[in-house]
């Protein structure tokens, strides 16, 4: 399910529109991940707090969204572009890949909350596909 040229353009365009709110959306998305899927807190046991809305969670959400934006710039070759991030996730973080889907869903919820008009079904499918491709690229080195 790779992105068409039109869908790549749609993704770049929407992320451009989103850029002023990207920190908020990133922070909120990770907060929602631990709120809606509490089992994901297992990856953050080393933090002082992994509860929704807490400072470490929001800060990390911003970091992750930064990575997503970086990936938008590498949308034509995600596997090559995300090689080192993939190694990080495969050998150090070892996040179960199912969680990428859960976080992607939370990101989509936040995008639709903040940009209800712009997040049309057509934008939704393009962004959903992009996040799925991103997740695949992150899993590249897993096994």
């Amino acid at each position, binding site marked *: 399910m790779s992105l068409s040229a039109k869908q790549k353009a749609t993704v770049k365009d929407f992320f451009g529109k989103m850029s002023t709110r990207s920190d908020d959306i990133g922070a909120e998305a990770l907060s929602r991940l631990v*709120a809606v899927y509490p089992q994901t807190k297992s990856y953050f046991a080393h933090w002082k707090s992994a509860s929704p809305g807490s400072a470490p969670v929001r800060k990390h959400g911003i970091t992750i969204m930064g990575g997503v934006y970086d990936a938008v710039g590498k949308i034509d070759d995600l596997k090559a572009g995300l090689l080192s991030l993939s190694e990080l996730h495969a050998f150090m973080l070892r996040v179960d890949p199912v969680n990428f889907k859960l976080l992607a869903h939370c990101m989509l919820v936040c995008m639709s909350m903040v940009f209800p008009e712009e997040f049309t079904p057509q934008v*939704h499918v393009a962004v959903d596909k992009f996040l799925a491709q991103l997740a695949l690229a992150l899993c590249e080195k897993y096994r």
Partner: protein
Amino acid sequence: MVEWTEFERDTIKDIFSKIDYDVVGPAALTRCLVVYPWTRRYFGNFGALYNAEGIMGNEMVANHGKKVLHGLDRAVKNMDHIKESYCELSQLHSDQFHVDPDNFRLLADCLAIAIATQWGSAFTPDIQAAFQKFLSVVVFSLGSQYH
């Protein structure tokens, strides 16, 4: 049996008393058919569903979206017996419509996004959690009679 907190019960009743079924139902089903195109396999008699524009303007899709959303009413009224409430509907989806139950999960995700679009920041993380828990119970129940 599923255990519900008072917050969860109140949240579910609140959501379903506030949403406009005529807007949210069609929006959710439309999104599902656009974002997960393989779901169109179940609606061959709805006419041309080849692209987003066709789907978004389709009256049969809109009407069916409302119908499906009202299908959740029985769960709202019967939160302690959701699985039993959906026995018949589960059999129907399995034996008559032959719907892959994973599709219920896809529609549930689209429903959460449809409500998020309507409510904005009022769709708080706690409310989202309660709503998705409710939907996952319905999704499970709809798949329960498959054999």
